[in-house]
């Protein structure tokens, strides 16, 4: 089933990005309508979250539901934030995420470079092993790692959440490697002839070109770390080191169902999502390109 394509260079990769042309005006409008409908369906729950966050308790329970809040209750946000140590959770999550992203990008880039830009005997066989680990179910690590971290005294620290990202993971290596394979061999050879060693070539020649792929990995790693639920659930017990996911979860469980403030829960959820959406908009230019160019053939 392998499709043989002309080998892409960085230039042609950019040209590949152009989508297949839609020919007729009617087809174009059909596409527009369908796209609009799908997009609205996907954004509806998020809209509902924001709308609910701004409603009063009575309006939230009103029937039929109001599409747009009659009065904007911004105080839901401040009340929600004050009902828990939100800023502590927020700061903890930022630190854990930032460290994870930096380590993940660095380690996966170096490893992917070793699997693509360097030539060494056995390289592609070892890479088959990388592919194989892509499908190993993660739960097997749950109990052994917990036991190991407990023995190391890492419970209630961020180490179990951050340290694993220092050791490249199969999916990210795969993604960056596919991107780097398009890097022109001539340039690497030229660098070698000019006397640059592998490490120097990595930083001065390859790194500037690899930014779309690295931005993609950064976003995936940031989302993964920001959204991590099981990690903090297992390793963080004290409130002052807790991250947003478990912090808020604990809050929903302690609140009694009678007077539970759903609008406040939606307000907090919105605050949790917001930084990722901002991050996505900042890197969006690179993101879809890095995620799709040359990932598969």
């Amino acid at each position, binding site marked *: 089933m392998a499709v043989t394509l002309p080998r892409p260079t960085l230039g042609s990769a950019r040209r590949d*990005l152009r989508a297949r042309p839609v020919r007729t005006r009617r087809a174009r409008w059909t596409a527009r309508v369908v796209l609009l409908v799908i*997009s609205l369906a996907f954004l509806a729950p998020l809209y509902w979250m924001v709308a609910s966050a701004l409603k009063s308790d009575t309006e939230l329970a009103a029937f039929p539901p109001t599409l747009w809040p009659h009065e904007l209750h911004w105080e839901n946000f401040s009340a929600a934030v004050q009902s828990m140590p939100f800023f502590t959770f927020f700061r903890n999550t930022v630190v854990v995420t930032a460290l994870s992203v930096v380590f993940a990008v660095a380690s996966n880039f170096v490893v992917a470079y070793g*699997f693509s830009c360097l*030539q060494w005997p056995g390289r*592609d066989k070892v890479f088959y092993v990388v592919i194989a680990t892509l*499908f190993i179910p993660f739960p097997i690590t749950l109990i052994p790692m917990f036991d190991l971290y407990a023995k190391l005294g890492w419970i209630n620290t961020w180490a179990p959440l951050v340290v694993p990202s220092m050791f490249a993971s199969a999916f990210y290596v795969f993604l960056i490697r596919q991107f780097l394979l398009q890097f022109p061999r001539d340039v*690497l050879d030229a660098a070698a002839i000019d006397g640059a060693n592998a490490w120097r070539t990595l930083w001065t020649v390859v790194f500037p070109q690899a930014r779309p792929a690295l931005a993609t990995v950064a976003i995936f790693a940031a989302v993964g770390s920001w959204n991590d639920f099981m990690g903090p659930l297992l390793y963080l017990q004290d409130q002052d080191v807790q991250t947003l996911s478990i912090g808020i*979860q604990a809050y929903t469980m302690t609140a009694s169902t009678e007077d539970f403030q759903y609008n406040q829960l*939606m307000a907090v959820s919105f605050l949790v999502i917001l930084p990722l*959406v901002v991050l996505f908009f900042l890197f969006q230019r690179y993101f879809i390109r890095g995620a799709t160019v040359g990932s598969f053939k």
Partner: protein
Amino acid sequence: MFPATGRTTTDPPRLRAGVLEVRRTGPRLSPRDRRRLWTGLAFVSPWIVGVVVFVVYPVVYSFVVSLTRYSGMNSPDFVGFTNYVSAAVDPLVRTSIGNTLLYAVVAVPCSLLVALVVAIAMNQDLREVRWYRTALYIPSLVPTFALGFIFIVFVNPQFGVVNQVLRVFGAGDVNLLGDPRTIKFVIVAMAQLAAGNAALIFLAGLRAVPPTLYEAARVDGAGPVRQFLSITLPLISPVILFNLITGISSALQIFTEGYVVSAGVSDAVGGPDNGTLFYMLYVYRNAFSYASLGYASALAFLLFVVGVTLSALVYVLSKRFVNYDLDAG
């Protein structure tokens, strides 16, 4: 791996040809190859360390502990295969496997279909397509736990929008989250919002289809449906397989969805009435609520065996369908 134009005169051709040919010349590597080997290994060493610590060690550990009775406090007592025998007759194991399989059977095909539709939508040649791509991807950024909160409010029996719509159709008060059968479908619906990630992989596949094929098909008079069935689907079959396998793999490991949604609506995690007790939730319950680490390890090891079997299947299938692009590019 790279264009042959980069070859230098000092570089013998056999090195370029790859590993096999080097082997054929004898087991000993030339000093130059040995140096390259060590450089290469140095660069991939973080991954090697990672595999040993995060894959090899846990697998061995899990198997050893699965043969013991161990609470984490006492020293492990060797009990042989008792834990595996207990698992075979444990009714909750059966419940959790049933829940997980039901979820996988419903959610995986749904997700593939939704992701493919989203990918095709993302691939349209319109000036404003960037905005649609963003709109379709943003829900994938929403943390599962936050999505869980949103859906708890969405289908809340008193004021949830879904219930109010159902009420208009005369369905009365339905508590979708209170019923162990329907709550699973709420989780399936929830999972569809994260279609953006799989859609990106489909998008990569769609982009790799040579446009000339469509032009030729159009000349031959093939309509859009025919083009999709005869060109697009066969040519993106590798990415379908990839998404299928990763989809099954993550469906078998579903945890957070069940934990968050059930914690929001019932006292016991995995409720109501064990309706969201997915396999991983039961492993978690045994390990961290009942402190039966030996039993939990046995359960985790069984899941691992299923996962490895799936990987082997992927390997066999990939030889036929998937080109991981190891020799070209």
